[in-house]
């Protein structure tokens, strides 16, 4: 609770709204003892006095009544009516909702049907009908406004109650022989009250506004009694000649409603944990880059990642997801990047084209050279032109990575169209051709399918087709088969392998599966805790892993090329990237660990075509001929 209030107070706008509201309420409470003129005494000699005239701070209305006094009395009435209406609607609506949610079954069905019917009405129309039946008057307007808000509470509270009604503590109370009424009041009610209060705080503004509206129409408070709405209604006749009589009550309604809204927004924000953590931030079109060191080009191969550093900045915490990673891919080569989830392999892959979600991602160092130019530092316009054209991506889960509402043919065509001017008919032909190339049967009719109409394997073929669309030099495949079934996985892998050999495209293949590496990759780099810990030709590493982590990774894969596996067979957890130890990151889980490992960062040792980051490797790479 105190935390909630603190969060609320931190929100300056909400605080402002709260303060204004408290002031208004305070004044309203004090109205009877304030030295005001009587609100209803008419004095036709002093009609329409302007504001700031003698004795009438806000002037007078069409009957010479003091506007300040009428305003405060009216505000008092409006607030009271709105508040009572809110309480009434909340009480009745919640009672209905609790009963429906708790008893369920037919009771629930019948009640909710009725609620749905009430909600089928345009809201104000229903209030008008009720006032029509009961006759104009403030009390009747109050009843009408409360009544039309009942369904809102009933529906919300029912939802919450359904969630609670089958929790253990309710069952326990039932078994203990408590009656329904006792359970409802002692077990259910205390749990839904916070929700009721929140719902009230969001609707009370509406209710004040609606009762004021009915009064404005002449259906609410009747003369000489006046709330803010009827003051405005009466002033309307003199709008053009004496606008101040309209402005005064109108501004008051506005002030009340805006402070309630500010406060309500603050309450909602303080209660919504997603907003608190900033998770609802929109990722920018390209990852933020704030590099301290920039390696010099031009780089080797088709893609040369040098000393890449990518971090996540969440609040004051910094997570070092990628820590000075260097990788080089030769033309037509398939380089595997393997590691557990959280090792930074995906972030490495996404950093290349600035696709790390940002915020919170920031690239803080390094470079990625493609044909002599650095992609990391490239302006968005240049990066955009290269994305999908020269360097393409394939992602993990094709159901979430394809747009659900656009036909796959169009998504394919778009991949081409954003880079090359191609006539429409030609685009369609190319899309069909691409689907054929990834061995999708009936490509001619499949171009018009939506992703949800295809199987997982099909969708991933579409994703592959999309990556191939512009014949890129490099494809970065981020666990492209992890979400698929074993048999489908094998098919997709062999398709990828064939395509790469046919077209000579280089692949950076991200995976956590040594079986996949064995089948696909020429070379492999092992990643742990944001760093590359070993790198070698696939055959060498499979024959003789040098890093203890690599060895363990391979040990927990009993047969190569099998199904989905998580590497949870390694005892201990992968390190949290915000708490990396000073020495070797693998030390807490390594069974060869010694004092020296923990003391200082371990450097990469290179020999022949191999590299390893370990003080006591399993295999001496210098002796083992690469």
């Amino acid at each position, binding site marked *: 609770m105190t935390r909630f209030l603190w969060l609320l107070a931190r929100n300056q706008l909400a605080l402002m709204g709260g303060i204004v509201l408290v002031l208004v309420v305070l004044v309203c409470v004090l109205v009877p003892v304030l030295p005001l003129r009587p609100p209803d005494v008419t004095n036709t000699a002093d009609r329409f006095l302007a504001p700031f005239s003698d004795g009438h701070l806000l002037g007078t209305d069409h009957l010479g009544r003091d506007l300040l006094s009428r305003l405060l009395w009216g505000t008092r009435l409006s607030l009271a009516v709105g508040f009572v209406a809110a309480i009434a609607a909340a009480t009745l609506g919640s009672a209905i909702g609790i009963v429906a949610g708790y008893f369920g079954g037919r009771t629930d069905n019948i009640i909710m049907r009725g609620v749905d019917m009430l909600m*089928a009405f345009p*809201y104000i129309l229903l209030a008008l009908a009720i006032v029509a039946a009961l006759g104009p008057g403030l009390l009747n307007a109050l009843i009408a406004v409360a009544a039309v808000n009942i369904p809102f509470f009933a529906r919300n509270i029912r939802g919450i109650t359904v969630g609670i009604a089958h929790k253990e503590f309710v069952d326990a109370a039932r078994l203990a022989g408590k009656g329904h009424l006792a359970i409802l009041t002692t077990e259910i009610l205390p749990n839904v009250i916070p929700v009721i209060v929140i719902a009230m705080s969001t609707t009370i503004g509406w209710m004040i506004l609606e009762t004021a509206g009915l009064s404005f129409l002449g259906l609410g408070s009747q003369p000489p009694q006046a709330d803010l709405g009827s003051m405005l209604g009466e002033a309307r006749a003199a709008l053009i000649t004496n606008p101040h009589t309209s402005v005064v009550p109108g501004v008051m309604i506005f002030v009340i409603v805006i402070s309630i809204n500010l406060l309500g927004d603050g309450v909602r924000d303080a209660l919504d944990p997603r907003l608190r953590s900033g998770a609802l931030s*929109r990722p920018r079109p390209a990852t933020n880059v704030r590099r301290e060191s920039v390696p010099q080009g031009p780089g080797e191969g088709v893609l040369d990642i040098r000393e890449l550093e990518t971090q996540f900045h969440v609040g004051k915490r910094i997570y070092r997801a990628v820590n000075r990673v260097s990788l080089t891919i030769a033309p037509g080569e398939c380089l595997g990047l393997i590691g557990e989830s959280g090792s930074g392999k995906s972030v490495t892959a996404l950093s290349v084209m600035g696709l790390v979600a940002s915020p919170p991602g920031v690239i803080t160092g390094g470079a990625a050279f493609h044909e002599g130019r650095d992609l990391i530092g490239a302006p968005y316009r240049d990066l955009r*032109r290269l994305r999908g054209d020269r360097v393409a991506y394939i992602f993990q889960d094709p159901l979430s990575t394809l747009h659900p509402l656009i036909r796959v043919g169009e998504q394919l065509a778009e991949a081409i169209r954003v880079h090359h001017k191609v006539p429409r008919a030609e685009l369609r032909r190319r899309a069909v051709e691409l689907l054929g190339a990834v061995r999708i049967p009936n490509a001619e009719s499949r171009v018009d399918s939506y992703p949800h109409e295809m199987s997982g394997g099909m969708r991933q073929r579409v994703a592959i087709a999309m990556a191939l669309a512009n014949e890129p030099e490099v494809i970065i495949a981020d666990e492209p088969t992890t979400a698929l079934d074993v048999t489908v996985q094998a098919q997709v892998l062999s398709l990828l392998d064939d395509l790469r050999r046919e077209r000579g495209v280089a692949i950076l293949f991200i995976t956590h599966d040594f079986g996949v590496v064995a089948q696909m990759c020429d070379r492999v780099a092992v990643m742990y805790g944001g760093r590359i810990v070993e790198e070698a030709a696939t055959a060498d590493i499979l024959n003789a892993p040098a890093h203890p982590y690599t060895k363990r990774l391979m040990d927990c894969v009993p047969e190569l090329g099998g199904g989905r596996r998580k590497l949870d067979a390694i005892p201990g957890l992968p390190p949290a990237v915000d708490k990396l130890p000073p020495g070797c990151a693998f030390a807490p889980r390594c069974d060869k660990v010694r004092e020296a490992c923990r003391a200082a960062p371990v450097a990469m040792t290179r020999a022949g075509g191999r590299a390893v980051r370990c003080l006591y490797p399993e295999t001496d790479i210098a002796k083992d001929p690469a």
Partner: protein
Amino acid sequence: MGGYILKRLVSAVPVLLGITVIVFLIMALIPGDPATAILGSYATPENVEKINRDLGLDKPAVARYFIWLGNMLTGDFGRSFSLNRPVLDEVLERFGATLVLAGTSFVICSVLGIVAGAVSAARQYGLADKAITFAVLIGISIPSFFLGMMMILAFAVERRWFPVSGMYAIYGGGDLPDLARHLAMPAVALAVVATGVIARLARSAMLEVLRLDFIRTARAKGVPERRVIWHHALKAAMVSIIPVLGIQAGFVLSGAVYIEIVFQWPGIGRMLVTAILQRDILLVQGGVVFVAACYVLFNIAVDVVQSLLDPRIKT
């Protein structure tokens, strides 16, 4: 598609019946003898006897409901005593005027709300976002009737840009430009709150969508950011925006009553208020049922649009 529309129309029948039941029950709250209540100051003995005969008001409530329902189904909504003309004629005429006003407002608030929300999301925490968020907060806090009055002062009295009230000029009007001049202020005043609500929702819907994987895919393909926002993200966000448009249409349609009073627009809201004050019960009853039924049908149209947009909805 046709099958889906038919299915939705059939499922609307119980809702429409429910609406008549609710209106009937509300009208049964009127204290005293129904005939006298309906006739009000016209309750002469002959009139009472005649209306009892016509509407079966001396029969039990259930019978009375079915007689009323049957009459409505044959297009007989009864006769307005205050206007001395058939209720349906008056309702249809007035509803046309409301439709022009509310329809225009609905278009304004939908387009403006969605665009503002999307811009706001695309520029999250930027200057445009802050300006829009602030404007939205003001917009949803101003009572439409007060806003309407202030607009009259500013744009019809201070600067004579628009006429003060009415739907057509009394002399020589009646053409489309004349209607547009009269329509501008009330339509905007009516749209403001709904625009704010829609903009807020559109912003958060867009922010949700912009974090999804397929947006990253679009960016990875090299789709220009403008197209990512306005094509990929907006299309997906519309799935959650459209139902809210349906709800807001209800607010615009019924909230028109305030604007019709302020701008003396000859719509059905103003008719209802007058009828309520004159206790012309049959006119109120007919007007409410008619508008509510139209709104139910409108919501079916909303569902159909939704199913066109989202192929995952089984049609």
